[in-house]
């Protein structure tokens, strides 16, 4: 073996090893984050965290019960906006339309998907907070719902498209109307994929903070109804992490652990649903 070849082989092995190291470094970040959150959050989390209100500044203890309920309300509202629009919009795109209208809807959805979350917050502020004259759960839910729409829409459409044509034709050959075909054949055939799409969209907005800063704003107490400012977990993490109190940092870690746990579990469930079989039956 001449020295030139040896050198080339050495370069090859060296560079390939480097790419492996890159991959390991990139993935290890996840375990580092998880480990750190479990370490810091795990020691700070307790029953009070889930059941108590935040204490006044200077007192230790207390919890984030109001933020947990607030997040749940925000996400419920977001789902009420994002899921139907995404789902029915996707049915229109995949089953009823073609050509220009579909192109415009897809384009708008992709555009909306790329809008930075802070800009969504500005829009929700202009559109909901200003007319109602105060920050509210409703405004926050609206902002999060907007962010859910393009994610559910585009992935649901993808899964509907993947339903084999023979299924549609079979149903129609049996005399079913188009709407009946969609409701009883196409959607059931793609339900795994659709469920995954919704769960992923849910997980995506569950951790969003930027659009909440000037819509739901934050609250150190319970937020009755839907028209009051409300606390939310991600927003509390932001405020508590930047505050100068040791006890608040502890709670920020706990909230981070709860939030990340929720998001990762939903993500894993969503991917598990897909992996348990084909998203849509093969033809």
């Amino acid at each position, binding site marked *: 073996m001449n020295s030139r070849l040896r050198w080339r082989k050495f370069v090859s092995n060296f560079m390939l090893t480097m*790419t492996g190291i890159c*991959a390991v470094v990139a993935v290890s*970040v*996840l375990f580092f984050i998880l480990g750190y959150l479990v370490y810091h959050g795990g020691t700070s989390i307790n029953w009070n965290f889930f059941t108590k209100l935040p204490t006044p500044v200077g007192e230790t203890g207390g919890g984030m019960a109001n933020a947990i309920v607030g997040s749940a309300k925000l996400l419920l509202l977001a789902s009420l906006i994002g899921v139907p629009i995404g789902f029915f919009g996707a049915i229109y795109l995949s089953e009823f339309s073609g050509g220009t209208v579909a192109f415009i809807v897809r384009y708008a959805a992709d555009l909306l998907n790329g809008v930075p979350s802070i*800009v969504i917050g500005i829009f929700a502020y202009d559109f909901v907070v200003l007319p109602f004259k105060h920050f509210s759960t409703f405004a926050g839910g609206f902002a999060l719902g907007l962010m859910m729409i393009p994610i559910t829409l585009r992935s649901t459409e993808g899964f509907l498209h993947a339903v084999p044509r023979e299924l549609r034709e079979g149903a129609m050959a049996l005399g079913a109307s188009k709407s009946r075909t969609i409701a009883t054949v196409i959607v059931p055939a793609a339900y795994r994929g659709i469920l995954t799409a919704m769960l992923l969209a849910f997980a995506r907005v569950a*951790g969003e903070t*930027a659009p909440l800063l000037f819509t739901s*704003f934050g609250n150190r107490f319970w937020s009755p109804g839907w028209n009051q400012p409300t606390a939310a977990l991600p927003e509390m993490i932001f405020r508590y*992490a930047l505050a100068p109190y040791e006890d608040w940092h502890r709670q920020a870690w706990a909230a981070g652990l709860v939030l990340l746990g929720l998001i990762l579990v939903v993500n894993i469930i969503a991917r598990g649903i897909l992996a348990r079989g084909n998203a849509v039956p093969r033809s």
Partner: protein
Amino acid sequence: MATTTTTVPSAGPVAGSRSFLSRLRDGDEIARLITFLFAASVVLVTLLLVFELWQGSVLARHKFGFDFFLTKVWDPVFDQFGALPFIYGTMVTSVVALLIAIPLGIGAAIFLAELAPQKISDTLQFFIDLLAAVPSVIYGLLGVFIVIPLMREYIQPALKTTFGFLPFFQGPVYGMGFLTAGIVLAIMIIPYIISVSREILLSVPRDQREAALALGATRWESTWKVVVPFARTGILGSVFLALARAVGETMAVTMVIGNAPTISASLFSPGDSIASVIANQFTEATGDLYLQSLIELGLVLFLLTFILNGLARLLILVTTQRGSGTGLA
């Protein structure tokens, strides 16, 4: 397609198709109308968003004009608003992020697509997907309590002693600032670069690799001189996609950048990005001009990400379509 006749717009009965009335009775037309309304609302909301940003910044746009982008004074007390420090901050943090994320991300993507056995590649990709799902406020939390102290105590002093002759690594060390924000951003965008680049690399036809290997190239030479150039456009697309994320990223940056409207060559200096200044000042903005200037910043951010995302999609589309062809580049 057998179903074409029923998908024709309901302008009237089409020869060979069922009549409008019978389709109405079956619920088809109603279903069509309802789903159309949902789909149309997506377009409506997007248009409204653009309109609100445009309309909401009208005062600021008229008062400052193009000077808005060239003025570095941001003074709410005297109603003087210039976006230059924030544009600078967004640019610097994004460039730092890309300088770190591109080699790491593409390296990892090469490993996943070219080297790793399918099972390992899929498992690692699963973790990468989870990493992409970690919300930005969590990165901010870790940035505040881990990256900032690390930067202040070790990394920045070390950089200062070794590369202190460069203007980027001079000045007092705070821990927070452009460099820290750039590093946190890099960690956040790496998963996007990896996922998209991996897909692109996997779409490069097999014969390209085999031809290179058959000519006596080593594994690395076939990857670096044949496969990567073939996928170059798409990889560039993944970089643009990541850049759009970095530019629009708010929470993590806001928490570690230091929040001061400065323009400084030193990466150690605290700064502000477009997104972080909106996040910090929006609720405190008193006076119409102040608020409208912030909304104009939002408009700038929107346009920036719009352009970057559009470019990214185009580049990725071009490559994957070429790759899925017969393999003749």
